[in-house]
């Protein structure tokens, strides 16, 4: 079952990491945003492209037919997720949190840490709930390779320092195992 994309948002409401795999039907175009991949390519080319490209560097080519660029996509996703979370908290108290929502073309899974770090994954509609998987990504990949890496800064402004090699490799492998299940 395919996984479409993966986002990480930090506590300053900024998108610090984006990964897109299979492009969904409605987004197929010749447009290649700087940080997107259309297939799961080998890690070597991945890291070459990603070296120190901050996420919010402007992309000049607007995609045709009103398709969204990666930044706008990320902002939309964040907006949805943030509003839903606030609504859930207002309705049922500060301890509750929303877990996922489903539309006719995709399912969105959400996990938030107590430090206000938000992990969002968009997958095929038949996928089981991935909250546990997102938690695993947090503890086994993000904390190990991003937080503990002294060569990456603490505040990841513009996505700086998150896309390091070990994290990317680990994420690819992990996503493969989810998809094969």
């Amino acid at each position, binding site marked *: 079952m395919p996984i479409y994309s993966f986002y990480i948002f930090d506590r300053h409401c900024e998108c610090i990491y984006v990964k897109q795999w299979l492009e969904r039907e409605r987004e197929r175009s010749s447009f290649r945003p700087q940080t997107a991949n259309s297939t799961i390519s080998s890690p070597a080319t991945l890291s070459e492209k990603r070296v120190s490209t901050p996420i919010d560097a402007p992309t000049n080519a607007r995609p045709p037919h009103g398709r969204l660029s990666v930044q706008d996509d990320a902002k939309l996703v964040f907006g949805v997720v943030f509003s839903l979370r606030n609504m859930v908290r207002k309705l049922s108290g500060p301890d509750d949190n929303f877990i996922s929502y489903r539309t006719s073309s995709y399912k969105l899974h959400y996990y938030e840490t*107590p430090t*206000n770090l938000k992990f969002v994954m968009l997958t095929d509609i038949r996928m089981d709930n991935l909250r546990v998987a997102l938690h695993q990504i947090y503890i086994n990949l993000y904390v190990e390779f991003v937080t503990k890496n002294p060569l990456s800064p603490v505040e990841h402004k513009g996505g700086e320092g998150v896309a390091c090699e070990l994290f990317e490799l680990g994420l690819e492998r992990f996503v493969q195992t989810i998809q094969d299940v």
Partner: protein
Amino acid sequence: MSSTKAARIGEEVWKTRIDKVNAELVTLTYGSIVAQLCKDFEGDYMEVNKQLDKMGYNIGLRLIEDFLAKTNTGRCANFRETAETISKIGFKVFLNITPTVTNWTSDNKQFSLIFDENPLADFVELPDDGRAQNELWYSNILCGVLRGALEMVQMQVDAHFASDVLRGNDTTEMRVTLIRMIDDELPPGDD
């Protein structure tokens, strides 16, 4: 979360989920850091204190994520629970010590941590130049760590040492004060 439950969780995480390393490596590394700072600031111990606090702050920002990942604790309901979590789970998981929580003020916004042992300060004696014992807080990095870690979970606190055995006092005591709870950040309005 009660104190015994927190202690139990701390023990369990320490035994099962932590990769361990020789304590002397950590002690000597910390000593090397403090010595380097003293040399760089040429004996201006107030600056060294500030720098240690800053370094601790940076560590705390990262350490909290590691802590949450390893212990799966959720948000604490109030400051008292936070204090128990810090002392029984936090310090246990990283330094294998459990400082005692005492001296609560009546408004529950201040408490003290009393350290029976401090692995960072094993083998340490402050230099005998007449000023170090009066000015340097050797373990000041811990204050910064607490400050940074709690800020990431939306509590602004102040932490400072009130006494230290390296300075000739009888106990090592850190005073922690809750200043305010920080609200969630809102996204920029022009979305």
